[in-house]
């Protein structure tokens, strides 16, 4: 084992964990003040629940063994349950750092993925149902997807798609699930009739800063070492975020006449999403291309919800689903041997593989989540009542007030 690699991976674990509070504030600032605690809670609780499901079974299902169906490796087994058998070595993964660090790193990804979904269902979903949703989803949707792409499963193996740090597993997965869940959940009362404005852009901007910072752990940590590949993933991450943010406000300037702070940070996140699957495979100029593409396309994709009339409250589709797809596809076109360590060759064939993996990931996540959402809706109920929605989730779900300026 290598202490330098271990040092960087420990740091990366901490950085990725920090993204979930970052995301909470990114989202929390965008909702109305009566719903901010409800929003923060839906994110933070993922740090509680997913840690438990992951340690107990998720990690094992994703990263231990292989159950094959028709020759396709579709899921792991329960051998690693409770992480008991992990021990203190690096035998399981054979990486230059201990297995427990790798499991921790993967846990942080498993936490933030369902948290990402919460943006789509803002301001109207029950907390208890959300908690149950997150627990089940992390086992039946996230763990298989992680297994297919990173755990030796068929997407890596048979489809031959590459996903450096989670374009499929994290962003497309979360985006597809968000779409399914919001369709079952329905729109917020007053959507498109009332002005539903962000109550605190400073919180959103703070959260975006935390996300950007943590994302270096996400992407450069996914090199699984402290070396030039990590360095390159770090660099491409920074470039894509910067270019997408800049392109986004340029687009705003052209389309609406004013660049906005929300636009800048939204663009940054779009760029970060899109570079995620590609970070370790492309170079600085490839990262620029991905940044520019995601800035423009995600910005345009904001219109989808108005065109198709679904209330994706904080634009999980436009940013994570669309951004994830852009990244997954462009990885197939822009990857360079030098940067990917000779892992694979970009080209039309690889593009096809990437596209196929996108379809599979979308279909699986959307389908499973839709069923889960329907079941939960019929059993526990997904939505708060209209009166609860009007009083705000902070009071009705948590009986707390976000800001008490009385004294």
């Amino acid at each position, binding site marked *: 084992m290598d202490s330098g690699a271990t040092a960087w991976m420990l740091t990366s674990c901490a950085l990725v964990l920090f993204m979930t509070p970052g995301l909470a504030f990114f989202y929390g600032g965008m909702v109305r003040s*009566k719903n901010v605690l409800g929003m923060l809670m839906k994110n933070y609780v993922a740090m509680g629940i997913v840690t438990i499901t992951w340690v107990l079974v998720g990690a094992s299902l994703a990263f231990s063994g292989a159950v094959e169906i028709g020759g396709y490796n579709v899921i792991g087994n329960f051998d690693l349950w409770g992480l008991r058998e992990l021990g203190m070595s690096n035998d399981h993964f054979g990486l230059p750092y201990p297995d427990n660090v790798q499991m921790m790193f993967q846990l942080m990804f498993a936490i933030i993925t369902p948290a990402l979904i919460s943006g789509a269902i803002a301001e109207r979903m029950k907390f208890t149902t959300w908690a149950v949703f997150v627990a089940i989803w992390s086992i039946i949707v996230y763990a298989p997807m992680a297994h297919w792409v990173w755990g030796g499963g068929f997407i890596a193996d048979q489809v031959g798609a590459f996903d450096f740090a989670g374009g499929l597993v994290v962003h497309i997965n979360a985006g597809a699930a968000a779409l399914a869940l919001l369709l079952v959940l329905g729109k917020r009362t*007053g959507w498109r*009739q*009332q*002005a539903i404005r962000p109550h605190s852009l400073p919180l959103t901007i703070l959260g975006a800063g935390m996300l950007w910072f943590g994302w270096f752990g996400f992407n450069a940590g996914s090199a699984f070492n402290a070396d030039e590949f990590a360095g390159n993933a770090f660099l491409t991450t920074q470039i894509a975020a910067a270019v997408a943010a800049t392109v986004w406000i340029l687009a705003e300037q052209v389309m609406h006449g004013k660049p906005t702070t929300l636009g800048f940070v939204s663009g940054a996140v779009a760029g970060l999403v899109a570079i995620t699957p590609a970070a370790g495979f492309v170079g600085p100029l490839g990262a620029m291309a991905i940044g520019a593409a995601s800035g423009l396309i995600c910005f345009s994709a904001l219109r989808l919800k108005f065109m198709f009339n679904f209330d994706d409250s904080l634009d999980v589709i436009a940013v994570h689903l669309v951004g994830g797809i852009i990244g997954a596809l462009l990885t197939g076109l822009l990857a360079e041997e030098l940067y990917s360590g000779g892992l694979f060759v970009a080209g039309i064939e690889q593009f096809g593989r990437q596209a196929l993996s996108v379809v599979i990931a979308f279909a699986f996540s959307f389908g499973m989540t839709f069923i889960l959402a329907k079941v939960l809706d019929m059993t526990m109920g997904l939505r708060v009542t209209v*009166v609860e929605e*009007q009083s705000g989730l902070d*009071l009705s779900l948590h*009986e*707390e*007030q976000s800001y008490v300026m*009385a004294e």
Partner: protein
Amino acid sequence: MKLVIAYIAPFKLDEVRDALKGAGVTGLTAINAQGFGRQSGHTETYRGAEYEVDMVPKVRIEVLVDDTLAPTVISTIETTARTGSIGDGKIAVLAVEDVIRIRTGERGRDAI
């Protein structure tokens, strides 16, 4: 001239404002407030310390109107702010002796 004050539920503000606009009102001023009334409060529990909070967030709106428009303003607020549940709020009407538009110095009805 009258000053019509109304305490309403915050989520009704947009609707009330649009309705008043429709009814010919040319201006109003809104303020965030905390109201206590018949609407039962709620219990907030912070780390085991329970507080009966009987102040709920309300919006207080204030409209200066000409005497003739006052009844319309009142009924418009009544109609749009009403949900039928306790806490819908109240309207109070006060007499105004004079109104001045700062920009022009106009006075009285013209200033509204």
